[in-house]
């Protein structure tokens, strides 16, 4: 089930926007494809462009980039992932979040998919 209220990219990231700050993670579909995550290379605080490389997830299958769904400034990272990378698998939409971005243009969310559109996207992929 794809949660309502979040926005999604075609690279399988999600973003949840509250007061101009976006919390970013990867979707359930993405974590299933990755397999068990063994290491998360978190971003550093600072400016980031939309679609720029944000983090790297290493799993038993591959190392995969996570891209920023929207532009802004990284203001917080989920340090719990350093010791518990498996949170990305176990609770990808909640405790497995990767970082928070203070969005430079919150309206750019219109470029992303809502839950229904993303669900259709992964069904057709």
């Amino acid at each position, binding site marked *: 089930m794809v949660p309502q209220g979040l926005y999604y990219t075609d690279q399988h990231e999600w973003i949840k926007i509250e007061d101009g700050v976006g919390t970013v993670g990867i979707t359930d579909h993405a974590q299933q494809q990755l*397999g068990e995550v063994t*290491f998360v290379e978190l971003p550093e605080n600072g400016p980031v462009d939309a679609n720029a490389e944000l983090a790297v997830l*290493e799993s*038993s*299958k*591959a190392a995969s980039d996570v891209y920023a769904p929207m532009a802004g400034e990284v203001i917080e990272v989920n340090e719990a992932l350093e010791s518990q*990378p498996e949170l990305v698998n176990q609770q990808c939409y909640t405790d497995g979040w990767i970082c928070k971005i203070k969005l430079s243009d919150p309206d750019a969310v219109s470029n992303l998919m809502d839950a229904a559109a993303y669900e259709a996207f992964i069904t057709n992929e």
Partner: protein
Amino acid sequence: MKLIFEKSQKGRTGILPGESDIKESFELDSSLMRSEPLDLCELSELDVVRHFTNLSKKNFGVDDNFYSLGSCTMKYNPKVTELIASCGGFANIHPLMPQLRGGGILTQGALGVLYEMDLMLREIAGMDAFTLQPLAGAHGELTGMMIMAAYHKKQGNHKTHVLVPDSAHGTNPASAAIAGYDVKVVPGNEDGVMDLDAFREMVNEETAGVMLTCPNTLGIFNPHIKEICDIIHSVDGLAYYDGANLNAITGRARPGDFGFDIVHFNLHKTFATPHGGGGPGSGPVGVVEKLTKFLPISVVVKRNDGTYAVEYDREDSIGYIAPFYGNFGIILRAYVYILMLGAKGLRRVSENAVVNANYIKSRLEEYYDFPYKGLCKHECVLSASRQAKNGVHAIDIAKALIDRGFHPPTIYFPTTVPEAMMIEPTETESKETIDAFIDAMIDIAKQAETNPESFKAMPKTTPVSRLDETKAAKVLDLACTGCE
């Protein structure tokens, strides 16, 4: 089973040392002494023989049964190459010998092997000179990229990036990055090869070169290879051929004729030399005429009197990249392999490798999804996504193969194919063996439909069943401190 150190018993030994014939006692200076005793295991010879014999029984290799990892890991190694490599004249020679006064004349045989190997690889590659120094495929890539960088520096070119296709082996972008270039990834097209239009658009004056594996990791030969080389040459860029999949074209097509400027071969893949547990590999690099002056030192040359010598005086060389002359014992085995087969034999190697892969593909097409249609080269990539819908993933199929006596193929690579299984049978397998493998795969596909739950308990025939696939990556214990 216990580690050999856990079997150690203080004072136990495999030999009876004789009485010391040094009569005078003397004390070593304490600066030359170890601060604590060396931690060696103490065992009898029989303890050691049993330990390693039992370990080997738990192993599975190409000498046991079909090994669908193929040349990607290691082909079958003909035993005659081991025999030659163990000859005292080769095995006991000291690598410093050719550099000592009067030592050159005592090592003519070994130097001759290196010299002739260079000539044979030139012929196979369509290149003008080879270095045999690189100690592995990725080391060859790095050597090649350093040569590329040296060329652009000499030309006064301002180059910033290297292009690689999205299906490239991971070592390609890593090698380019270590040589100082940014890496840009060119997307693939629906035929499974690098998209020509996207490539053309990405090439500009700052493009140092392109790195290509051809056929690529999907086992597909890029039909635009000539055009790709022409485009990269139009900006004075260089085309790099990653020879990881040379097994598909040996003796039939030459990278130099496609327009490539630099190639590396993996002797341990194509030319059947042993390599396991990380080495020793060998990744000779060949170049076209205009790049020969950048090759690493040393170089084996033939003097006017017909003798061989080692030469170090090369002004534009990228310098030393390895001690001595590369992995000599491995180069020697590959040399024997090439001489034994000859030109005709090498052509039959690639022919059989390709026929075998296509045979597997055509018999399995009914049972598994193959994302790319048509003929493949020496390997075929299937997707287990049909089985995954029932909860049976590529890794479950791999475990099921183990219980049927076969080594699983590479799985989850290339990453561009979901639930990928990359099967490379190589040329050495008989039709009976390949049929048995295919029958096992078909049986597994049927079981995935009728009894998907049964896969969870597999493998059942191994000393341990499902391993924790990620624990070693998460809990690093390189010193084995937890082995008490």
